[in-house]
């Protein structure tokens, strides 16, 4: 069954299992261009696996991923990234023994002015004081921020963020949220963000996708999703 191309990214009938575990199960979902979409779901429902499948770090057992109408299934991760699809990791994976500046310079930037981009993103995440420090010496939350800045260097059209708020202090959470909002309105970027900070996600996102057992349970506006009985019971624990 083929779905028509709808959003900037279309995941079609995607499945992936590990041993006996079906981590992603016939998942079909799409994200509208220039939206901020949230993805929530219980622990182990397949969110990170979906990100890994989209960005080419894992290969699906079946199904496909289309980015702006192009089938990118089976592409190498770096090609996907250069196509305009950036991501962060659930646990920050910065280059420990490189300085913050070097971390950012490493990125395959489409931007001509690398220096300017470095300055811009470093100061955005308020890490310019650490510019010449090794990334490995940052605190846990600071590493999350650096991870986001590094992804932004890629200037991606679609940004996948895996729990960017986890472990980040509330002030910065708001700043990041504001940034995402600006990226969308000013630069026309699309954001897909996974997080368990339900309040933050709800106020930030246009729509929420709820993943349960590897497939999409529903997709709707946050207020609707939060009132859904299944979500209340199995996710929010209310």
């Amino acid at each position, binding site marked *: 069954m083929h779905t028509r191309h709808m959003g900037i990214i279309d995941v079609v009938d995607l499945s992936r299992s590990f041993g006996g575990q079906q981590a992603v199960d016939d998942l079909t979902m799409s994200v509208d261009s220039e939206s901020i979409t949230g993805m929530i779901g219980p622990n182990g429902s397949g969110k*990170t*696996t979906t990100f890994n499948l989209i960005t080419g*770090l*894992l290969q699906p057992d079946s199904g496909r991923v289309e980015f702006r109408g192009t089938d990118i299934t089976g592409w190498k991760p770096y090609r996907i990234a250069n196509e305009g699809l950036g991501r962060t*990791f*659930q*646990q*920050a*994976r910065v280059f420990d023994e490189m300085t913050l500046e070097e971390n950012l310079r490493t990125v395959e930037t489409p931007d001509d002015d690398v220096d300017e981009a470095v300055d811009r993103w470093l100061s955005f995440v308020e890490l310019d004081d650490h510019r010449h420090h090794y990334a490995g010496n940052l605190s846990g939350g600071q590493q999350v921020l650096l991870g986001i800045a590094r992804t932004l260097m890629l200037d991606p059209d679609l940004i996948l963020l895996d729990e960017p708020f986890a472990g980040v202090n509330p002030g910065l959470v708001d700043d990041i949220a504001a940034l995402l909002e600006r990226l969308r309105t000013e630069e026309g970027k699309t954001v897909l963000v996974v997080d368990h900070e339900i309040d933050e996600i709800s106020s930030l996102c246009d729509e929420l996708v709820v993943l349960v057992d590897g497939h999409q349970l529903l997709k709707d506006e946050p207020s609707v999703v939060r009132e859904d009985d299944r979500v209340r019971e199995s996710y929010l624990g209310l």
Partner: protein
Amino acid sequence: MVDVTIILSLLASGLLLAGVYMLTSMGMALVFGVMEVVNFAHGGLIMAGGYITYWLFTEVGVDPILSLVVVIPAMFAVGYAAQWVFVEHVVGEEDLYSLLLTFGLLLVLESTFRVVFSTETVTIPYLSQGVDVASIGLSLKEVASGGIGFVVTGVLFAFLSRSSLGQAIRATSQAPDLAEASGINAPRIRAITFGVGSLLAGIGGTAYFISYGISPIGGRHLLLIAFVVIVLGGMGSIKGAGVAAVLIGVFQTFAEYYAGSHRALLVMYLGIAVVLLVRPHGLFGEPEDRLHG
């Protein structure tokens, strides 16, 4: 023309060689499994065991197999101390540092042997008589050292799977700081592991000495063989090392018979590249992906 006696003879010979290879490889697999340290000094430690036996035999007149009573505690102590004094400092650092550090230890051991025992290969007139089993001729010394190999391997498995010390050893390897936070004295566990690894090497050295003879740099060849064994078995997998030792011992014997020793070695060394291509983590190793960060 397939001659059954030949096949059986080769098989017997291969299995006994495998027994020795088990001894000379297992300690390295253990140390790697626990500390992710590839112990280049292992080759020197094997020879150290052999030289202890040699010294006891020539100077004191101790029977070589009985000498294990000294070799085992002595080598354990050597390993335990080496871990505290040297290797502990590079645990958790980049691989290269532990490789180089243990390489330095290997050079020191080798040169010490050279100065103390001279460069000659020494052998021992011991259990040289043959035994006839079903018209296959075997030499008693090979039976003895191969036998020691299989027995010691059995004991090691029992130790690692049954004892909580065995589990603590594994835990320490995976997350040393967390092991501490679980009440495990990680440095002590590592020292014990290195001690056990060294005593295995030492027993291997005794067995090798009884069978074939030792020399200051004689451990290098065994080091390479140990690499072949543990990469084939899957690094860090003790079970893998055991199985791979059997495969390699038997393969080498047959390949030498049919194709000569260089071709046997060529296939063993280059073959490992092919194995890694097909099964990057050997027969029993586990991949290291970090998809969850």
